[in-house]
């Protein structure tokens, strides 16, 4: 399913709010002013500062940040609910800033779905009518749009509720309707604006897993906004961490946990369990190094694991076999060795020098 086709390409995008935002942008490009200086000189708030990201087909891209970090602004720049002050956003190869009103409506209707934290289900309409709303706006006939909506509602497990009204549903079910509404129009990209943040933890985890499964099954790309790093790790193929309008780091969960870009990220990842996150290839030491440390032991006598085995599996292997080290084999070739020491460092989040590359 995954390919390298870039669906959303966001390059050096800025959003400056305030009456004098034009002047502020001039000063940013001309004099290289920073966020603090812009606020002091022009009274303008920089919502998003020089953000670049690419979302590829079939990928779930999470943007994690605390409130006020600019993540909600960033996601709205992607479908031009907010106009960027500077920089370009291309969706499927087309610059959305250059689109006229009709083309923009068409793009939003067919290619970019959106799910909101507030859900925004129309209270006067049934679940089915809400799910069909996107197609209704596109002018699809009642029968066709209801069929598509029923199929989408079935995917989120709400087939028995289609004739109910939103107020009769629990918060988790309402958000499923929101997701079904986005799926009904069959867009390639779904923007998820903190969709599960208002739900209680148990329902939230359930919906996270369901969403990821569904997106992967249907081959959808998603940009998923969250303030919860656990959620980002559960859902995202790649994660960008935002602070004060700046994307301070992006990469896979493992890359971020193993090589945090700065102290802010270090603090964030401190409480995250590495057991399922960190893989053997991040904690193994090179074969040469191992030979020097343990000259008497034969490599072939060690139990073997693949580079994708996570720490949990490695611990299982070591405790189960009684061996002090595990050889990591990739397609039959030994690429490194995980020792008890490197494993323990991995659990704590410190990779051996050189080994994390």
């Amino acid at each position, binding site marked *: 399913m995954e390919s390298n086709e870039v669906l959303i390409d966001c390059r050096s995008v800025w959003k400056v709010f305030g009456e004098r935002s034009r002047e502020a942008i001039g000063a940013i490009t001309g004099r290289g002013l920073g966020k603090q200086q812009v606020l002091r000189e022009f009274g303008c708030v920089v919502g998003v500062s020089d953000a670049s990201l690419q979302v590829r087909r079939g990928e779930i891209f999470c943007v994690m940040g605390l409130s006020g970090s600019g993540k909600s602004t960033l996601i709205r720049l992607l*479908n031009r*609910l907010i106009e960027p002050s500077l920089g370009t956003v291309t969706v499927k190869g087309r610059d959305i800033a250059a689109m006229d009103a009709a083309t*923009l*409506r*068409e*793009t*939003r*209707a*067919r290619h*970019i779905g*959106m799910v*909101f934290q*507030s859900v*925004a289900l*129309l*209270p*006067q309409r049934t679940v089915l009518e809400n799910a069909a*709303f*996107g197609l*209704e*706006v*596109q002018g699809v006939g009642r029968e066709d749009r209801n069929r598509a909506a029923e199929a989408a509602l079935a995917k989120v497990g709400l087939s028995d509720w289609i004739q109910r009204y939103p107020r009769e549903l629990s918060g988790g079910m309402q958000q499923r309707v929101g997701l079904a509404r986005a799926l009904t*129009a069959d867009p390639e990209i779904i*923007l998820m604006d903190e969709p599960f943040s208002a739900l209680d933890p148990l329902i939230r985890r359930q919906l996270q897993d369901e969403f990821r499964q569904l997106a992967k099954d249907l081959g959808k790309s998603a940009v998923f906004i969250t303030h919860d790093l656990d959620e980002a790790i559960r859902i995202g193929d790649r994660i960008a961490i935002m602070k004060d309008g700046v994307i301070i780091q992006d990469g896979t969960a493992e890359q971020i946990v193993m090589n945090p870009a700065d102290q802010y990220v270090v603090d964030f990842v401190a409480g995250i369990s590495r057991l399922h996150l960190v893989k053997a290839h991040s904690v193994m030491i090179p074969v040469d190094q191992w030979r020097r440390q343990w000259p008497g032991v034969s490599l072939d006598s060690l139990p073997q694991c693949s580079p994708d085995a996570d720490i949990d599996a490695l611990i299982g292997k070591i405790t189960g076999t009684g061996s002090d080290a595990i050889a990591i084999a990739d397609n039959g070739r030994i690429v490194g060795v995980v020792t008890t020491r490197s494993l323990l460092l991995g659990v704590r989040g410190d990779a051996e020098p050189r080994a994390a590359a």
Partner: protein
Amino acid sequence: MERFVTTFDRVVDDALFWLTDHAAFVFDGIRAVLEGLYDAALWLLMLPPFWAVAGLAGLIGWRVLGPAFGIGSALALAACRAMGLWEETMQTLALVVAASVIALAIGVPLGVLAGLMPRLDRALTPALDLIQTLPPYIYLLPAIALMGYGPATALVATVIVAMPPAIRLTSLGIRQTPAAFLELGQAIGASRGQMLWKIRLPFAVPSIMAGINQSLMMAFGMVVIAGIVGSGGLGETIYGAIRTLDIATSINASIAIVVLTMLLDRLTQATARKP
């Protein structure tokens, strides 16, 4: 200053006379339309026997607000008939209905526009404030100068008085669409028309219904005052009773007005509250 005021007054008077002399056909046309509407409403109300009208009102009241209200309404209307004021009551109702239909036909669309265009709203607000602060019978004077004695004059004045709440509350309702739903409309690719019909208007319905209710109540008040210009109906009955100091008749007519007002007020309020 005094000179300026007298000059201003003369100019206004002259303008009014000029209009009566030269634009008579316009006002005759308006008068014909208004009276036609009023006559049609009255004809419909007087067509069935009184018990059918009272029975129907009772039935609607029962369905909307329960048995007590339904039976009460039917009995109260029967009392109007017993007081010998049936025709006058129906005339008043016809006036209110005709005036409200016109006031709403203009007021609700204007309110929608004002809700969508903040500039129009800002321009309308002082005009509406003025209309609502002036004593309502002021509107009878120019109307009687242009259209003479009769129900048409009463209707013009009533429409002017009944329109402001419809405009204000419709505009308010349109402006109060929750932001999340406006964002949904944009994100889903809705056009301006779809945004209005499918998102803004459904949320504005309770506010618009409140506006309709308020307009009706204003119309009732004005229709009674318009008795002075020969509107017909209970207003004229009361005006006549005041001139002859006929206290009993004025009390009877007042009771009939209260019955009618309560009936329409409760019914429109109840429909406004329904989801």
